[in-house]
């Protein structure tokens, strides 16, 4: 579903993503780990055609994301670190709006059904987004993905700033989506959450994918050690 081949992005002299090749199939969840500036978010931005690649290709469901940005976005749901919705509208109105502008007219019962499935409390459905916490906004984002019957979920630091309970709930939602065959690419700093939810884990450094594992083949302490070694954090290791 998600595939990149020699994907490269340069900003002047800086190479943000360097010949990146990866693949995420249906029902898989690839967590990209890496320090700030490693190229995780830039990769996601290229998959969304927010920025165009310097070279290489990024495909979604077999379609080139740069050449067919509108078509590929039909399969994608994107949840950034800070999901910003329309504060003047309620949760159900936001869901209705984002579904409606992409051509999906949903009945009220379907809208409430998706919000419920995303784990939002019923009493919040008709409250304005301006009163929502970050975790509640993320749930509305998941409801948008469910309503869209999304094939690809791109997540950029979705659990940063969430309390453990909200983070855990979010992880469970991802497992549910994975179970429905959604291909998920998640950029994160959260090693624990990555180990818990991912099927595959990759470590990026200086724009390159330097390590890649099947999540079940590595324990959390091993993952932490490998990550720190890869990042060359000697003082932490000693």
């Amino acid at each position: 579903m998600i595939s990149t081949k020699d994907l490269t992005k340069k900003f002047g002299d800086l190479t943000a993503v360097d010949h990146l090749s990866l693949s995420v199939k249906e029902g898989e969840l690839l967590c990209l780990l890496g320090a700030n500036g490693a190229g995780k978010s830039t990769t996601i931005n290229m998959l969304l055609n927010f920025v165009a690649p310097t070279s290489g290709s990024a495909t979604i469901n077999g379609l080139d994301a740069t050449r067919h940005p509108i078509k590929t976005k039909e399969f994608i749901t994107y949840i950034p670190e800070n999901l910003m919705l329309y504060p003047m509208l309620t949760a159900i109105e936001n869901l209705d709006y984002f579904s409606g502008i992409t051509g999906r007219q949903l009945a009220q019962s379907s809208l409430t059904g998706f919000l419920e499935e995303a784990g939002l409390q019923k009493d919040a459905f008709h409250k304005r987004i301006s009163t929502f916490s970050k975790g509640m906004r993320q749930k509305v984002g998941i409801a948008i993905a469910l309503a869209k019957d999304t094939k690809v979920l791109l997540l950029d630091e979705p659990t940063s700033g969430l309390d453990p309970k909200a983070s855990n709930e979010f992880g469970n939602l991802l497992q549910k989506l994975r179970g429905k065959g959604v291909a998920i690419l998640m950029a994160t700093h959260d090693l624990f959450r990555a180990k818990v939810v991912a099927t595959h884990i990759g470590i990026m450094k200086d724009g390159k994918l330097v390590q890649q594992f099947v999540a079940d083949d590595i324990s959390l302490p091993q993952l932490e050690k490998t990550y720190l070694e890869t990042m060359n954090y000697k003082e932490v290791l000693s």
Partner: protein
Amino acid sequence: MLRYNFIYELRILLRSRWIQLLSLLLLLLFGFSAFNGKEKVEKRKVDIAAAKQEVLDTDQSMLKLLDSVERGMAVSASPWTIPTSPMAVANYYPRVVAMDPQPMAFVSTGQADIFTHYVKPTATGDDFALNFTEMTSPVQLLFGSFDLAFVIVYLLPLLIIAFSYNVLSSEKESGSLRLLASQPISIRKWVFQKLILRFFWLSVLVVTTLVLVILIVGIQPLEWSKVFGLLGLALSYMLFWFSLAFLVNLYVGSSAKNAVSLLGLWVVFVLLVPSVLNQLAGTLYPMPSRTLMINEMRERKVEATKRQDEILDNFLRDHPEYAINDSTQTRSFYHNYMASQKVVKEELAPIVNAYETQLKKQQSWSRQLQWTSPAIVVQESLNNLSGTSTADYENYRRQVIAFSESWREHFMSFLYNNTLFKSEDHTNLPQFQYHALGQSGVPKAILILLAMALVLLGLGFAVQGATRQKGILAD
């Protein structure tokens, strides 16, 4: 997408109180300016009515005086003011030559605060020296009048700028653009729809408040075809500004930059271009000095006085119908004066024509370049619609001159045939009826504004292909 944008845009505008605020502002601005305009028109009407009443009163006293003289009674009036003398009637009992306000005059003051609306031409007065200008407060001339045209041309674009400058940038700055841009929609089309919807809602408010205000202020008589012309002009002018906002939203960036850019364009289109065009028109086609013209006129009059016998002889030779009784009658001051006045007028014709030619050239030059600023197009059209444009006052001036001529000619036959003015001649005195210019040019102005808006919208969409490869958030 349009349906959902339509529903939720209205909901957001209502919840953020934009609609309520705009309705209140428009009601206040349109209400005050329409009331202001109506007051000015009422004052004009009262002034003209008072002048006409004064003529009626003096006519009554003239008829009483004539009646007394005709019955052989002694009258206590200076001999030269007794109306049996035709020149006394021609000079002391003039008609009111008034430019009646048009039904839409309340919309735009135009040239109304510079020029007078009635004159009383006499037989011995000079047409070209008639004073058409009125004493006006220089402070008012500096700031202009707070009329509907001022609100539409100057203030409405500022409201549009406040209403549209950050349609895209606010999404960027709040972070919601990332979610929006990840949807399978064209952001350009989305921005276009948002602005068109805002244009639609503002249009609804403008039309409703304008019609309400016109009805509440009680404009009479109301010409609906012209009201539709006014609405058409206002809406197409608004579309121009929304189209400009569309381009700025797409190509400029942050909200602050957008606001500064749009305000800069407002200064250019509304203040700078009209002022520069006006200055250039004056420089390219300078008007001859009025002082020089009056000096020239005085010199010609002095010369004419010196050779008045010769002029009168020539005049009578050219007008044998007046010369028939020549041998039997005596000649007075007025016989000489009227003959020489005609000669002076003929001699001054080239100077007066030069003034009119330059004025026409200035107007034609400004008309040809009006498309450089939509503000000029709208202001000119609103002036035309209101009957207060330069062309309207020029039309009035021409009619005054024509009436003065007919007034003079009417008494020339009395004078040179040495006929006395009688009571029954009163009903045959020439009467003036103002004829307004027929065409307002509103449809042409609307077409020009729509063409401008289409060019801007076209520019917004034309560059789409070139920027697509960069990615939508590349900047």
